[in-house]
């Protein structure tokens, strides 16, 4: 077996080598394009990678490498305010995701299935939260909650409600866009056939709509989750002094100084973000594989 396989492997290696050489050759032909790509990637990633590396640096002076340490992470996990901020951010992002998915799917179905007067105006209205500058939405919420006299001394999960309302307002249009793009190529005949065969509305939703929309639900949900986790400006204005989220906490730390603690907190947030993106890509891939087998 081994002996049969080996020549093949050698051939593959040779082929790969050939490809590698031709890739180098073609990149030498127009080096400027590839250099620009490389420089752009360096520009995008150097700051982030430096930030992550120096969260493990054993020196307060954040600039000279003094050896590996986890002490800033330990410090972070014993910092109660930081942990509370992190928990707040995650809870807000999760509830926002669920709310945005519900509102976004409803909007997508509404815009896809029905014709009604002033529909194009309505479509434009849905996009307003995305277009209007964040700062304007932020101060609008500040003034609004101030005017209706929203209580500022609510118990914990309820005290996050203001921020969740604000986040789902600018997250659900994104879900609507993504889901609607997928609805466009939903096969009507499938639904009709299922109904003829005696499926009720629930069956149709569960067995036809849900599998078809699943990739867009994952993509839309991920978008809502990261947008909520990412938001600083709107939260900054909406939340009172009683609630802090991780970006708000990091902001107050950054204003103070550039310290390894900020690097550690940022690294944790980056890891959470990248993990959720990877999970979404993985889930989508599973879905694609299933699709190809059926």
């Amino acid at each position, binding site marked *: 077996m081994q002996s049969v396989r080996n020549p093949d492997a050698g051939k593959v290696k040779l082929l790969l080598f050939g490809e590698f050489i031709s890739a180098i050759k073609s990149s030498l032909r127009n080096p400027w394009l590839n250099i620009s*790509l490389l420089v752009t990637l360096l520009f995008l990633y150097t700051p982030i990678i430096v930030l992550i590396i120096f969260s493990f640096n054993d020196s307060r002076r954040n600039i000279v490498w003094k050896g590996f340490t986890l002490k800033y992470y330990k410090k972070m996990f014993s910092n109660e305010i930081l942990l509370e901020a992190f928990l707040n951010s995650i809870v807000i992002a999760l509830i926002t995701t669920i709310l945005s998915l519900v509102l976004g799917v*409803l909007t997508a179905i509404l815009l896809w299935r*029905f014709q009604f007067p002033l529909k194009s105006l309505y479509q434009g209205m849905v996009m307003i939260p995305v277009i209007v500058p964040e*700062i304007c939405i932020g101060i*609008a919420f500040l003034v609004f909650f101030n005017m209706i006299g929203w209580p500022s001394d609510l118990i914990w999960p309820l005290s996050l409600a203001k921020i969740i309302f604000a986040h789902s307002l600018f997250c659900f249009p994104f879900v609507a866009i993504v889901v609607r793009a997928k609805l466009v190529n939903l096969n009507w005949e499938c639904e009709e056939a299922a109904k003829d065969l005696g499926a009720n509305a629930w069956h149709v939703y569960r067995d036809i709509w849900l599998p078809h929309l699943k990739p867009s639900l994952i993509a839309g949900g991920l978008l809502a989750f990261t947008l909520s986790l990412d938001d600083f400006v709107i939260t900054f204005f909406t939340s009172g002094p009683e609630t802090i989220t991780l970006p708000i906490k990091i902001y107050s730390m950054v204003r103070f100084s550039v310290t390894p603690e900020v690097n550690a907190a*940022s690294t944790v947030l980056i890891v959470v*973000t*990248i993990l959720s*993106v990877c999970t979404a890509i993985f889930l989508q891939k599973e879905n694609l594989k299933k699709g190809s087998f059926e």
Partner: protein
Amino acid sequence: MLSDRFRAKNENSRKVFLVTFLPPTIWLILFLFAPVLIIVVYSFSQKVGLINIEVNWVMDNYWRAADPLYLKIFAKSFYIAGTTTFLCLVISFPVVLAITKIRQNWKLIILVLLMLPFWINLLIRTYALIAVLRTRGFLNSGFEWIAAHLGLRFEPVQFLYNDTAIIIGLVYIHLPFMILPIYAGLEGFDETLKQAAEDLGSSSMQVYRHIVFPLIRPSVFAGCMLVFIPALGSYLTPELLGGTDGQLIANVIERQFKHANDWPFGAALSMVLIYVTCGVIAVWLLVAKRKKS
């Protein structure tokens, strides 16, 4: 019987319509229109005393916003957002051309790499940039190291806290918004068109000007809007990277609400920002439509 069935179906679809129509609409009315309406009302009000606001439908706040001081800040916001858009465009073209020439399996990796920073927190990316650019940051110490090896004296350069720093920060944050639409526009491009033009004797510059660019123009416009609009209303980047006089319009608005405590004037300024943003989008839609026809 047929009409019965029809009515049942109609009633059912009416129910579905209400179920899908009401929640998003109520949400929009409650959390978008009501707050923005209050801002509109406030913008015509006056501050009385320290905290009271009297609604008396005056234009004073808008006249104050037309003061040269604030007009200058608006102009500066436009200048910085415009420069950012231009730089993103200039950087994106070669990058997109490079991506289209890459082998398929590498292409996906490069695209994911270009998209990933978009998911990472804006504040963290800005902070990461500060750590690189500050006077005792990595760029300066890199220069210092080189200078020391060449035996030169080196004074740390102040990269931060000026308009250039704001522009660098905005380009850093918004670059993926320009690269991805242009790439999407160029992805389906028919290479044979280019070859045909080359065979007919056009230079590569002519090919780009007369064939490639007109085809990807809509996506270039889209990318420009995706960069220009958020850059115009950006708050965090100028706040952290700009100098004491590096205020853009969003920072001035924030000041009215959090420090100066002049809510009516802040409301008027943010209404002006909303109008300007909508105006830019309207112009863009008009131009896009005209080019299409």
